């Protein structure tokens, strides 16, 4: 549930960054630059706050790959809105990023023990959202990973 909310939140933020870079691509038109820049800054702020929100409950190594979906979004925008040509090499790049994000999204989003001595390499890890001690952002669950294996979120 948490992961789903975060994913939608991130993709929301990503669309916003996507349109910023879009504005940059059109930045040659300096006459209309000022309103675009204002919108761009607003969107950048919105993206930054969603990014920080995601960082408040998920690992950096979880959030960052998800953020890179923005590149994918950007390429898709370029293809379908700007009707640019997207080369096969770039499609391969899109596929790689998407694969990487899928990889990390299947795992747990937060390291529960700061001094990670947890078992490594449980390929079908549980994506349970462990309960938070919201005051300190620390996890109450001792090992959220030892739940029922293979549970999808």
């Amino acid at each position, binding site marked *: 549930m948490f992961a789903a909310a975060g994913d939608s939140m991130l993709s929301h933020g990503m669309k916003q960054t996507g349109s910023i870079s879009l504005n940059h691509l059109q930045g040659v038109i300096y006459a209309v630059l000022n309103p675009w820049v204002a919108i761009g800054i607003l969107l950048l702020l919105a993206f930054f706050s969603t990014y*920080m*929100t995601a*960082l*408040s*409950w998920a*690992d*950096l*190594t*979880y*959030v*960052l*790959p998800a953020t*890179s979906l923005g*590149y*994918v979004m950007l*390429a898709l925008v370029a293809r379908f809105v700007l009707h640019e040509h997207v080369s096969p*090499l*770039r499609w*391969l*790049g*899109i*596929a*790689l*990023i*998407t*694969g*990487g*994000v899928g*990889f*990390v999204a*299947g*795992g747990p989003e937060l*390291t529960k*023990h*700061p*001094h*990670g001595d*947890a078992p*490594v*390499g449980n*390929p079908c*890890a549980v994506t349970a959202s462990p309960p*938070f001690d*919201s*005051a*300190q*952002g620390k996890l109450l669950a001792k090992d959220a990973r030892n739940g029922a294996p293979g549970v999808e979120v």
Partner: protein
Amino acid sequence: MKGIYTWSAILAIVFASVIGDVLLARAMKQVGDVGALRRRSGLGTVIRRTLGNPNFLFGVAAMAVAFFSLLFALSWGDVSLVAPAAASLTFIGNAVAARIFLHERVDRRRWIAAGLVAAGVALLAG
């Protein structure tokens, strides 16, 4: 000679943005779950606690350094080299730094993901 300048600027970007990301991540872990905090004590508390966090401020400063390094790098090298190199090296550097400084458990799954994303970004931005 120009290559050395370009690559040192790229390294500066990577270092600064990795430091910035790690500091921001640490700051937000200290602030705690923003959603829960906002429900309990309002948006003002969240903003005040975030902006008052020294890690957050240093993180933003590091991000600014990264941005200016990017400007320097772009003045020395091609954007088709600088952008993909800096972006993909940042991903790898972040995985390493998150493991060392944030004690995140970067398992095989996350290494693979970081590698895939770095390769993909390099292809896309190239």
